[in-house]
Structure formats: C-alpha cells, structure tokens
C-alpha cells in the first residue's frame, strides 16, 4: 500500500509537469515549431485567455464554457495580430523576434493601465482526493486528461482533416500549394490563429490555479520554448516526447533537490539537446526511422 502511494505520488508529479509542458507549449509548437515564427508574445496570448476566462467565469458562465471562450478570444486576437503584423515577417525570423516582443510589451503594459495591477481570480474547482497520507487536487488530474485530449485532438486535426493536410502543405512548400490553388495567406492566418487559440486555452485551463496579473504569461514562456526547442519542428514526434522526457527530469530533480534544481535540469537539458541534436527530438527520430 505504501508502495502504491509513493508510485501514485510520483506518477501524479510526472503527469502534473507533463500536462503543464504540453498545454503551455501546444500553441507555440504550432506557431514556432511548424510556422517558424519566433513568437515572444506567446505568454501574452496565454494571459489573454486567462483574463477572458476569469472575467467570463465571474460573470456567471460555467467554467468549461469560460475556458473555451478564452481560447476563442485569444484565437481571434491572434488572427488580427497575424493580419496586421506577423504576415510581414514570415521570411524575416530575426525581425519577428523584435515585432512579437514589442507586441508582448504593449499587451502587458496595456492590460496594466486598463485593468490595473491585479485581478480577482476564480477559485480552483473540484476539491481534492485523498490517497494515503497525501491529498491531491482533482482539477490537476483533469488538466492531465486535457493534455492527452489536446494531443489527440491536434493529431486528428493535422493528419486526418482537410485543413491539416492543406496547412502542412502550405507550410512545407508554399509555392507548390499556391500553384495548386490554396489560398496560402488565409491558411497562414488560420494556423497562427489556431496557435494563439491554443495559447489562450492554456491560459484558460491554468487560470483557476494562478494569480491573475498582467505579467502571468512570463511564467509559461521558458517552459514552452524549452519544450518546443527540445522537441523540434513536429508536435507529435517532437513536442509530446520532449514534454514527457522533460517532465521526468524536472519532476525527479524537484522531488530530490528542490525547485531550483528542477529549473537548472530543464535548462541543462536544452543546452545538451541543442548541442547534440540540432534538429530536436523530432529531427532525430525521423532521421533514424528513415
């Protein structure tokens, strides 16, 4: 029984970190991993989703609906931003860093000025469950299920739907797709919007567990970039296994040596991966299976 308890505790920690990495990096994996836009405003799309979710939930909307509306608003904002700014930077990745960083600063300070330095959050729903001497938040188990559901949903979207085929074709060979009659501009816009909506979804899902401040996106951004960089260009062969490996490293080190070493372990892993596998995990996996 004691063995079962400690195994459950370890699995829970692993699942918790895995869910955080997958959910927070999904949007970035689409925008940065697939489209190649280095999106430093990723955290602000997350913040947007979280703020909309909290406002909607406090206005009386049921929480799942509020989370979806957060994702929707972030997606629409993403499409507007793509049309106005990002569109002009597709072939200038270094300039896109400056542009998205600027967007991020404007969003953070704008929210600070308009909505103030803090906003009341929504409490974490669902309560807790006891396993042996420890108790666990049920909502975080829901988050783990959401992470798996998200991966499944994206797989179906990108590999078994018309939009997915067109989006992958557009991003891999834009001229060819254009020649075959695809409106590539629209596909880019929709794909970026999807990435922003996924970021908004991350914000919505984590809104009930966090303090609502304009800078809250910053706490997601290191983990998201680390996961996407380790994973490489493909979400499924890259980001998902990367999240699993990083979760194992981070949860293990945090359990043994504390939060500081968990963070250090995460960053050392990225440095090693960039050095040894420049294409990330997906590049390596695809290279060996070919």
């Amino acid at each position: 029984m004691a063995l079962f308890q400690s195994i459950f505790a370890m699995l829970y920690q692993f699942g918790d970190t895995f869910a955080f990495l997958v959910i927070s990096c999904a949007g970035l994996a689409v925008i940065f991993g697939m489209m190649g836009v280095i999106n430093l405003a990723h955290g602000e799309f997350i913040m947007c989703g979280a703020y909309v979710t909290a406002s909607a939930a406090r206005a009386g909307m049921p929480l799942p609906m509020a989370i979806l509306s957060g994702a929707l608003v972030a997606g629409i904002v993403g499409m507007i931003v793509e049309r106005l700014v990002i569109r002009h930077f597709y072939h200038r990745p270094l300039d896109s860093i400056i542009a998205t960083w600027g967007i991020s600063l404007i969003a953070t300070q704008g929210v600070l000025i308009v909505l103030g330095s803090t906003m009341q959050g929504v409490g974490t729903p669902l309560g807790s469950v006891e396993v042996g001497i420890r108790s666990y938040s049920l909502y975080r188990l829901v988050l783990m299920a959401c992470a798996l559901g998200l991966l499944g949903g994206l797989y179906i979207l990108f590999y078994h739907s018309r939009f997915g085929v067109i989006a992958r074709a557009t991003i891999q060979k834009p001229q060819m797709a254009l020649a075959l009659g695809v409106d590539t501009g629209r596909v880019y816009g929709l794909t970026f919007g999807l990435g922003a909506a996924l970021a908004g979804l991350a914000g919505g899902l984590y809104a009930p567990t966090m303090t609502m401040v304009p800078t809250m996106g910053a706490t997601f951004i290191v983990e998201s970039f680390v996961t996407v960089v380790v994973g490489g260009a493909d979400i499924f062969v890259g980001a998902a296994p990367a999240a699993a490996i990083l979760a194992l490293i981070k949860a293990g080190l945090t359990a043994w040596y504390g939060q500081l070493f968990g963070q250090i372990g995460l960053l050392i892993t990225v440095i090693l991966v960039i050095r040894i596998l420049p294409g990330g995990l997906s590049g390596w996996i695809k290279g060996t299976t070919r």
Partner: protein
Amino acid sequence: MTSNRMILAGLLTSAAMAIVAAAPAFAQDGPIKIGVLEDQSGDFAAATTVKVHAIQLAAKEINDAGGIDGRPVELVVYDTQSDNRRYQEFMRRVLQSDQVDVVFAGFSSASREAYRPIVNQFDGLAFYNNQYEGGVCDNNMIVTGAVPEQQFSTLIPWMMEEYGPNVYTLAADYNFGQISAEWVRQIVEENGGTMVGEEFIPLGVSQFGQTIQNIQATEADFVVTLLVGAAQASYYEQAASANISLPMASSVNVGQGYEHKRFTPPSLANMYVTTNYIEEIDTPASKDFVERFHAMFPDEPYINQEAANSYIAMNLYKQLVERAGTTDHDAVRAVLAEGDVCFEGPSGNVCLDPKSQHMSHTIYLAKVNDDHSISFPKVWEDIKPYWLGDAGCDLTKNDPSAQYTPSSPPPAQ
C-alpha cells in the same frame, strides 16, 4: 596654459559647490521640501500607491495645522515604476537639483540598497517606511517598518505553542527570503522546535505540485510562507486545492498586498500574519485614520501597514524638526538620540530607537478566516527593534552604513 585653465575650472567648481552646500541655510524660511520616491506603476504598484496617498494625507493635515515650525510642507513626488534604476536616478535628482530636506523612499529591499549609497554620498536623510529583513545600520536612514525580531519573535513562538513544534519554511530565493528564513530557523531552535523542511523558491516559479507533496510528506505542524511576487502567490490557490490543511504563518502577506481581498476564499484561510497595521484594526485611532483616509481618497482599495508607517513617519519628522528648530540632519539626529521621539498614531504608540534608528511597534496577529475576514487573536504592545542595538550597532557613536544579518553581525568593537 591648459593646467592654468584646469586650476581655474577647479576653483570655479569648488566655489559653486560651496554655494550649493550653503544654499539650505538661506532657504530656512521657505517651505520644507519632502521628496517622495514610491512605485506608482509596475509590479509593486498595488501595494505602494497607497503610501503616496498616506504621505499626501499627512502633508495636508500638517499644512492645515500650520505646517512644520510655521513652514509649509511641499511634496516632490516621482513615480519610480518598480525599477531600481529609477530609484537611483530620482534619488540623485531630489537630493541635487530639487534640494529636498528629507526623502521618503522605497518598497523592495533591492530598491533600498540601490538608493542607499546615493543618500550616503550626498549625506541626505531618508525614511524607509517598509517592513523588511532588518539589519540596516546607517546614520542617513530612519526605518519605520517592522523588522524580523518584531514580526517573527512574536509570531513563531505563538504558532509553535498553538500548533506544535515542527516547522516547514517556504521562502523566496533572494536576500529578503534567505535572511528572513535564517531568522525563522534561529527562533524555532531557540524555542526548542524542529525545522522539518526548508525550501527556497526561485522568483517567478508558479507551479508548486512537488513542493506541496514535499510538505505533506513531513510531519510539519505549520508552514511559514515567505513567498514574494505574483507568480509565487499561486502557491496558496494550489495548496488549498490540494487540501493542505496546515495553518500558515507569514510576515509578508495581508499587511502589504491585501491578498485576502484579492484571492478567492478560502485559499488564504488559516493564515496568521504579524503586522503593525492593517485597516481592519478595530481601535478608535485606527477607525479615525481610515475615515480621514477615505475622506481624501474615497476609492483607496486598501490601507496597508506601509501606508500607516508612511503617515507616522511624516509626523515623526515634523516632531524631529520642530524640536531641533532646523532641518539640519545633525541637529535632527541629536534630537533622535535623546530617545524619546514617540508618536501616538493609527497603530498605537511608537518610538524611535536611537541606536538603530528603527521604530518600536504594536504588533497585531492577524488571522485570515474561511471567508477571508480578519480577526486578531493576539496583540503585543511596544515590541522594540532590539536586535541591531544588542548586536553592536550604535548610530549615536559611529556610522558603519552597512547591512547586517544574524550570520554576519556587526564586528565586535
């Protein structure tokens, strides 16, 4: 030729400096200028905008009653934007070009340590009206905020008696958290308790799943939370949803950032905080203060301990100048050295300690209830800032202008 010019330039510069140095002497009958450097935007604004309002309230009351020694008070207010470089820039500006008589400045310990060398360089006088990790022994600084010996020597023994001897500390990983945790460790050991765990959290960490399990795996009777910043504040929500039912003890929450008003109940329930003032304090003096505050600032979200400290500091400065008969810093310090500079304010009676230039406090134990209302199970009156004086800091004799900690105390004389 060139060297002659340089000598001439040197002479002109020193003449100019002499005039600048002599200038305050001629200004004796003008208004008394008070520099106010506080964060009105950026990360800390939620807790510090109210300090500026408290100073404005005190200035208005002092001016309505005829000023300080017949001279009106004039505030020179700059927004330091929660940015340490702004503190340095504006501290130079108020001391050099605005020629203020005294400065009220600073929220975080990092900002204080950023501006303190500049106050020393120009031999200014600064009031730091914030609770902090303690240990600043500096003739140019007067500290009205509570320090660890006042907040922890009351809080920790009370918690140990009430809940048990096993303590788990969770602290932010920088100078404030590290030094405060050192104090907690020392007081727990002195009282025969055990530290069952101690974890330092890097600033910006917002996911506490593993930390929560670590706490549950120990036999802790209560958790000391010294977490700082918005990201780390996510701990309370996550701990509550994992149903950690342990009481919490803190020196930073409620009294500064009014988390009990901002977070959804009951995430902060069962937290105990030692503070020298919060607006819920139910004494006639406190109620009167809150009423006057809201008359001038009807939309003030919360009147915290730093607001009360700033208000008290203004009144202490008035008393110091009136008794000295001048704003000259040496004369003001000579009055302070007499050891009877006290003020009956919103938080009760407080006095300045000549050795450390820190302030005694009435310490209130605030308990956050399930619905996030506040009750006060215990009040300690006249808790002195004893540590610096006992450790060997005596500003009436010499001025080391240094910050000490329990593990690096003042050198033996």
